[in-house]
């Protein structure tokens, strides 16, 4: 967008490596926890799974956010704080109203759609940091989920899921499934399934039916996350369709990938030849 930061290009490779490494760490963490976990739990303790879940996810999320933020132009950066505040405000409102949803990623999805996966990732990660500074650090371990949601929202927009009103909820549903899978190990190994009263009850029920801890938190996540993200994506698409097209078109990502469908480019009419220079109507006089 602006050519003001040549220093950024020099670090381009480094940033790419950060993002790739972060993604790798998150995927590896998840796979390790699913494959290696059950036998360790059977031994009676938690082993190192909690430490790996916490460290792997935090380092992964941090790497992606750090690598992604350097790619963002100032216009996108100044959108992110607004999105973060929107996340927190609506999320808190939902919690206060006691709704069985989170609705704490409206801003993250909004940024992902308008400015791309990198911007979505940064919004997600930093939302949880702000959440920690203002309301309490409980949510901090879930930063990785927020990153994943932001990234997926960005790719959904890139792949045309926001061109039709009815496609966005589908993208939200899929995002919700991924979010549920990614966050299940955190809920299991760091919170012991007790992330809240309602969710805790559901986890208890799944365990009583004979599921393992990780399976129970995964199932619990699959009950609430896809629904939550479907609603979130729907709200976002409503907001975005209400925006004037000119405003949406200001975001380069939107233009580059035709996020809201093809818009026929308009060429301005050629300006007419200049009028004859206006002669001063009054005689020249010194300034009073």
């Amino acid at each position, binding site marked *: 967008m602006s050519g003001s930061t040549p220093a950024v290009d020099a670090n381009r490779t480094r940033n790419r490596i950060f993002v790739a490494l972060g993604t790798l760490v998150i995927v590896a963490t998840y796979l390790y926890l699913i494959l290696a976990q059950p036998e360790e739990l059977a031994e009676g303790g938690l082993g190192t799974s909690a430490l790996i879940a916490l460290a792997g996810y935090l380092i992964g999320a941090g790497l992606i956010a750090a690598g992604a933020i350097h790619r963002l132009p100032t216009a996108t950066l100044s959108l992110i704080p607004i999105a973060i505040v929107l996340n927190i405000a609506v999320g808190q409102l939902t919690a206060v109203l006691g709704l069985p949803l989170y609705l704490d990623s409206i801003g993250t999805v909004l940024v992902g759609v308008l400015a791309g996966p990198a911007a979505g990732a940064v919004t997600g990660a930093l939302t949880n940091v702000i959440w920690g500074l203002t309301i309490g650090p409980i949510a901090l371990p879930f930063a990785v989920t927020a990153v994943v949601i932001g990234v997926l929202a960005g790719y959904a927009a890139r792949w045309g899921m926001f061109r039709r009103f009815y496609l966005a909820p589908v993208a939200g549903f899929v995002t919700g499934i991924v979010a549920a899978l990614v966050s299940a190990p955190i809920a299991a190994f760091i919170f012991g399934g007790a992330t809240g009263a309602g969710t805790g009850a559901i986890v208890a029920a799944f365990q009583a039916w004979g599921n393992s801890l990780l399976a129970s938190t995964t199932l619990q996540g699959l009950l609430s996350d896809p629904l939550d993200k479907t609603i979130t994506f729907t709200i976002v698409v409503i907001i975005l369709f*209400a*925006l*004037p097209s*000119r*405003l949406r078109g200001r975001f380069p990502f939107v233009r580059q990938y035709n996020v809201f469908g093809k818009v026929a480019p308009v060429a301005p009419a050629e300006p007419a030849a200049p009028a004859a220079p206006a002669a001063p109507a009054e005689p020249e006089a010194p300034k009073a």
Partner: protein
Amino acid sequence: MNDLTIRIDGLRHTYESGVEAVAGVDLTIAPGERVAIVGQNGAGKTTLVRHLNGMVRPTEGAVHIGDWSTSDKSIAELSHRVGYVFQNPDEQIFARTVEGDVGFGPKNLGFEPEQITESVMTALEAVGLAHEAQVHPHHLSLSERKRVAIAAVLAMRTPIVVLDEPTTGQDEDGVRLIASIIDDLTARGTTVVAITHDMDFCVENFERVVVMARGTVRADGPTARVFADQPALEAAAVEPPQLARLARVLGWSEMAVDPSGFVDAYERRRRG
């Protein structure tokens, strides 16, 4: 002519921060009157007029709109009697079309559908935006959006209209348009109360001026008389309109409200 007198008695308002924004104001505004409220930033003008539709409640004293006390009516109830145009139009515009936004107030007030269409179109014509009725409000410029916000209040046809800084950001034509809207309102018998920093606009469009400083009224009366009251204006740090300043430099005792009045006075003086 409406029959709603605005009565403000012993009004005080202290914000939670401890700032006393209104520190004892008594004011009566008759139905159909047009009153300008002037004063420095922080003089308490906005806090005072926000009492008129219940957005701010008296800490002490009372505000009556006709037989209603604003202390025991909701803002929505008071909106049947008092329309309020905010300084920043973007704090109220939400609909996807100009028409939809302007129709929001009448709909809330329970107008009939055909009545809504009629009042919306009349209001849009008054602010010169009838041809933009189907446009997204955010495709308009800020000064046009400000006129949408004014239309939104006009369409509610309230007997009292409050305008907070209606001319900021408006060019010459915009200011003239707002002046003509105020004339229309008066012709309909509407009471108009406006806050303004533009003293030329004030002197030409309002018969009565209230000067505020530090939460109190420092001068109140017919426009020409108030702007001749040099000590009160100085105490409130209000700069008189340009022609008043000129008259003062020339050593005149009277004050002209508009250019024609000034030239009349000049002519009298030239004749001796």
